[in-house]
């Protein structure tokens, strides 16, 4: 299937980008043929609706699934309307290559409800404070 992974760079060694709407790049991988393509996220600089804009971009690319850190509710609604499966929980400490391997092993769970509050595709990562 055509899987889109949010990325901070163009290739498989780039790090995963945890937010969807403002992710600089999308790496689109055919999980069977392993054909890879990367595209810039032109919705990144949008003042409003970056998540919806990003959803439009990957929907137009024919993505069937999305792997990212977190998706806000507006983007989630758009992705669902386009029948794109949403997988959350990818970590910025993984490369795209590693994330893809984990995905193939079934490491990520499909999200059925958005985890962020509105505009919530933008939570600070936790950690000890």
């Amino acid at each position, binding site marked *: 299937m055509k899987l889109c992974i949010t990325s901070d760079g163009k290739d498989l060694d780039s790090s995963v980008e945890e937010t969807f709407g403002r992710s600089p790049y999308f790496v689109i991988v055919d999980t069977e043929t392993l054909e890879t393509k990367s595209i810039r996220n032109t919705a990144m600089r949008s*003042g*409003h609706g970056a998540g919806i804009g990003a959803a439009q971009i990957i929907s137009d690319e024919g993505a069937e699934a999305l792997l990212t850190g977190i998706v806000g509710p507006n983007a989630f609604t758009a992705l669902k309307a386009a029948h794109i499966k949403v997988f959350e929980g990818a970590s910025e400490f993984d490369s795209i290559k590693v994330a893809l391997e984990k995905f193939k092993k079934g490491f990520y769970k499909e999200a059925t409800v958005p985890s962020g*509050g*509105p*505009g*919530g595709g*933008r*939570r*600070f*990562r*936790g*950690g*000890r*404070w």
Partner: protein
Amino acid sequence: MKEVVIISGKGGVGKSAISASLGAILMKKHKVVLADTDVDAPNLDLFFTARLRSSKDVKASEKAFINCEKCTCCLECVEACKFFAITVSDGAPVLIRYFCEGCGACSIVCPEGAIEIKDMKNGNIATFDIDNAVIVSGELMIGESSSGRLVDEVKRAAKEEAGRINADLIITDGPPGTGCPVISAIKGSDYVIAATEPTPAALSDLRRIFDVIRHFDLPSGIVINKAGLHQASEDLIRDFAKQNGVPILAAVPYDMSVPEATARAMPVVEAYPDAPASKGIMRLAGVAEAVLNEGGSLSGIFRR
């Protein structure tokens, strides 16, 4: 790294004074970034001896521009603008850019292609160094709008700075009101402190602010500033808090030392550390620390 945001709904309840003092206390034990997202009237740096390190323009606004040479005065744009930003003078369209929302409706209807929408500077972000911390402060340009987007940029810059210096905590002084800039300020944070005062006006605005907070499902608590001012109003606030399951984190007594410290451009906990108000804010700091350690939940830390 955690972020706590202080908002108030109503202006003037003492939000900035509390944020400054809270920051002053917590920065003694932790690495802290103070984010000032009250972009209409950013004041946090004025409470400290702040040294300006850098300032950068922010272009987070879009505005229309009418090219007079191409314009044939058909006036289609006047009706197209739902924000009343274009009026007529001497038969020609006059664009009052202050009211333009950059939606582009005018440029769509213009038969001559005479209208362009451009990205505009609407503010700047200044970074200040203070003795134990960093302040990242956003300031809206006079007459501008889109403060929500400017607030987004301030938060982003604060997060970057926090990453750079390995900070544990971002304390965000939020904008007043209940609109879009406040939403931008509380998005993505770990805890929201709603500051209020015991007056009828402030209670009305407290209700409004909780309508917004609830929508985001964020853990939150109330601090009553100027406590003791008006018992009837204070009782109403406590009732409201109880009915809505929101903890009262602390009550900061009404105390002249606060405006006097502000007049001297200092956090009250530094200027008058023994004042009742300072003691109240220290209690608030203690509760805030405990709450953030618990990951935002309260586990029995309630203040009544």
